[in-house]
């Protein structure tokens, strides 16, 4: 077992002697620097380095590796605990409040003394500039390529205004209590660094120059996060160095250097870890788990707000219109068996969020494996082994965040057979499935399917619940693919959106979640646990119940 062995280099003996002598001389010159430099090498699942200009692409893996380490946002997720839900805490904003009279106006107080990596101050001007980069088409720094991944995650944010150097007013298009949560996705890039790139850029029009400036900024960015970018090789590696002047003393990095490498193929990542090329891999190949642990590496996992469900159709003629059928399906999936199939790398869901989460509530419907109850419900609904219920699910063979869609769906298919379900699959390409999601169950693209299998992030209330149950989110507006909804749910959504006190908002969201679980517009099949494998050299690893993880607090032997 030699997980940290270095690759051998058959250099000639004289060269080795020369190298040894040079090393010795260097060591005499700077013994501390050489002895203590700690480099953490990470293999990501992404095929390219997520964008480094402030608003990462590649979903939440982008936020995890080129968002949170390099940049700060006004609010952030608490990633310091593994045994409690990750909650919202202050970041660049020390406090925030909604206007008592006009609930579309928010005041954010900024943290004093924060500086970008290029030394420029992070003040109200910088925040307004960063809001305008995605919302104000007339602003010189407006960048269409950042709009999609930003504006959709804060759909009600309209504008920003400086009140004083350390106070900003944000305006929303309607009263929206979710804004502080949404703002975890707005990362602050340095306006002065961008301006330097803009001044040096060439282009026929200011828009062309701005585009070139953003490209240059992405290769040499400046944020205010715990790590700063030192080297960028497109599609190959991103090197980060510790930002020792980071404002949060608890998160000043102990690791000197982080190297991020895109490796989309699971076996390649596993081989790179076993071969000592990297110290950390995301999503190791499931069948390699035993080998990885046998070789002394550690597997980290925790329940993630990452839901892997069947989203059901409520269009006319759908077999899921009967609540008994929906609940029966939820009771008939052998999740424990599926967990074994995945080598333990899933959590068994009790709803969209897990019990203990502030939004879980008190559902009366308990999602568990109970074939007899499921069969009884199906019998009541008029189905039997001789007269099974035909359902058709649109799925993909692979896809970002889709875990192992084929074996998992086939397992669910077999499981549901014992409760008189005859499940058929319409397997289509991932991007097509993803695009069809916005078209809805009534669109020809559904191809007669009455359920769809697309996993989703449940970090914030809009992503986790609202977009699937609000009647305002019917296709093509958002992801209520199945046209689920009623006046009661809409009222619960409105209550949550207009509850500006954190506790009241969480209570309203708990009522919404409770209603959703009891009414079962999904078959909740699995929650992802975000497995990652690391060298035993990496210490102080906290894998929170989140899509994200804090590299800044880790150490290395």
């Amino acid at each position, binding site marked *: 077992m030699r997980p940290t062995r270095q690759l051998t280099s058959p250099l000639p003996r004289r060269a080795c002697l020369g190298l040894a002598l040079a090393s010795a001389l260097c060591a005499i010159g700077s013994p501390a620097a050489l002895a203590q430099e700690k480099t953490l090498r990470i293999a990501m699942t992404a*095929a390219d380095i997520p964008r480094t200009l402030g608003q990462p*692409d590649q979903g939440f893996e982008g936020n995890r590796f080129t968002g949170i380490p390099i940049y700060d946002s006004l609010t952030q997720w608490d990633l310091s605990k593994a045994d409690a839900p990750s909650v919202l805490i202050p970041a660049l904003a020390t406090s925030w409040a909604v206007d008592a009279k006009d609930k579309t106006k928010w005041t954010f107080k900024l943290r004093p003394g924060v500086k970008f990596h290029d030394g420029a101050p992070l003040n109200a001007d910088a925040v307004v500039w960063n809001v305008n980069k995605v919302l104000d088409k007339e602003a010189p720094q407006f960048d*269409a390529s950042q709009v999609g991944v930003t504006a959709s995650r804060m759909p009600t944010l309209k504008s920003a205004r400086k009140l004083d150097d350390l106070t900003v007013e944000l305006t929303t298009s309607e009263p929206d209590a979710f804004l502080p949560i949404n703002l975890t996705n707005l990362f602050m890039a340095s306006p002065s660094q961008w301006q330097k790139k803009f001044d040096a850029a060439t282009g026929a029009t200011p828009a062309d120059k701005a585009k070139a400036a953003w490209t240059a900024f992405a290769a040499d960015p400046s944020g205010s996060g715990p790590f700063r970018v030192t080297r960028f*090789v497109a599609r190959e*590696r991103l090197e980060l160095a510790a930002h020792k002047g980071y404002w949060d003393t608890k998160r000043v990095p102990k690791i000197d250097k982080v190297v991020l490498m895109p*490796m989309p193929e699971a076996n390649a990542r596993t081989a790179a870890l076993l071969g000592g090329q990297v110290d950390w891999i995301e999503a190791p190949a499931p069948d390699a788990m035993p080998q990885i642990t046998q070789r002394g590496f550690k597997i980290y996992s925790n329940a993630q707000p990452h839901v892997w469900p069947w989203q059901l159709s409520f269009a006319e003629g759908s077999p899921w219109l009967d609540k008994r059928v929906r609940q029966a399906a939820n009771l008939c999936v052998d999740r424990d068996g599926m967990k074994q199939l995945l080598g333990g790398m899933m959590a068994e869901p009790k709803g969209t969020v897990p019990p203990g989460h502030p939004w879980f509530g008190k559902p009366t419907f308990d999602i568990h494996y109970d074939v007899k109850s499921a069969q009884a419900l199906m019998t009541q609904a008029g189905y039997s082994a001789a007269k099974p219920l035909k359902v058709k699910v649109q799925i993909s063979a692979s896809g970002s965040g889709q875990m192992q869609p084929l074996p998992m769906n086939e397992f669910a298919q077999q499981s549901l057979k014992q409760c008189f379900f005859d499940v058929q699959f319409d397997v289509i390409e991932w991007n097509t499935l993803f695009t069809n999601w916005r078209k809805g169950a009534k669109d020809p693209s559904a191809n007669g399917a009455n359920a769809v299998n697309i996993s989703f992030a449940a970090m914030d209330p*809009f992503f986790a619940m609202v977009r699937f149950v609000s009647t305002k989110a019917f296709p093509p507006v958002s992801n209520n693919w199945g046209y689920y909804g009623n006046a009661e749910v809409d009222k619960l959504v409105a209550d949550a959106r207009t509850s500006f006190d954190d506790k009241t908002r969480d209570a309203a969201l708990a009522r919404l979640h409770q209603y959703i679980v009891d009414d079962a517009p999904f078959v909740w099949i699995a929650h992802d646990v975000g497995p990652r494998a690391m060298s035993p050299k990496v210490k102080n690893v906290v894998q929170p119940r989140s899509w994200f993880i804090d590299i800044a607090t880790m150490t290395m032997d």
Partner: protein
Amino acid sequence: MGVRRSRMGVSYPSQHPCQPTTMLAYLLRRIAYALPIMLGVALVCFLLVHIAPGDPLVSVLPADASVELQAQLRELYGFNRSLPEQFVMWVWRAMHGDLGMSIASNRPVATEVMVAVSNTLRLAVVATALGFLLGCLFGFVAGYFRHSWLDRLASMLSVLGVSVPHYWLGMVLVIIFSSQLMWLPATGAGPGGSDEWAWNWAHLQHLVLPAITMSVIPMGIVARTVRALVSDILDQEFIVGLRAKGLTHLDIFRHMVKNAAPTALAVMGLQLGYLLGGSILIETVFSWPGTGFLLNSAIFQRDLPLLQGTILVLALFFVLLNLLVDVLQTLLDPRIARA
């Protein structure tokens, strides 16, 4: 160009094809032929990527983006225009060296493609050289010692080369030499990335496994071709004549090589062309940042400008390589008259 007629009635070009004026005319004609091919390739590749289902803005537009936001981005990226309009604009810009910007990375496609091409070229040239050398060796041995155990062994190796799935072979090599023995790195194009490439062992060790994996198909194809050529040449009368003149095995071998070279070279050129396209599977298995890796990424991110630009450049390379092989063949074998 005039034509002279032999006593047997066979026509020959009156000028040697290697004469500068003839060669220039030939080159110009071949380039002229290549232009409509390129335009056709551009049209096919544009149509293929546009008729594929899915949204071209999927990498920058989450599924829950509002309808207004979708429309706004379509307009900003020019996808609201008609397909003919988009095609003409793309071809016009491409003719000026501008392949557009990648939707996903916001970097110029031309830069992305050229970096990937240089990485693939490095791998493909080494793999082709390896495949060609081994293929020729196995082919000559098998052909020269027909029906012997050496022939059977060499033929078996060449059949294995074309039959074994190369991505599988790549994974097996990685398991043995990287994961288990830890002799060679499993992924990447150098300890510090491909932009710091140097022809030293620290970098070459990254090339060993992908190059071996990539070389097995050309090795098999070249070996089979060369074996057939050698068998054919050995049956010809001039070999008997050479033997009758008392030439040594080495001298006969030299004649044989000269006769087999043009066809073997053509096969190798085609193989190099295929390998220059990059192998999506091999480059993905080894995370080698070449054109195959780039295509894989562009396909999964549905990055249309990057996909179109990469395919166009690769097709251009293929056409140019074919042209180069034709010219080399003409130079090597005067019998091939490209009149």
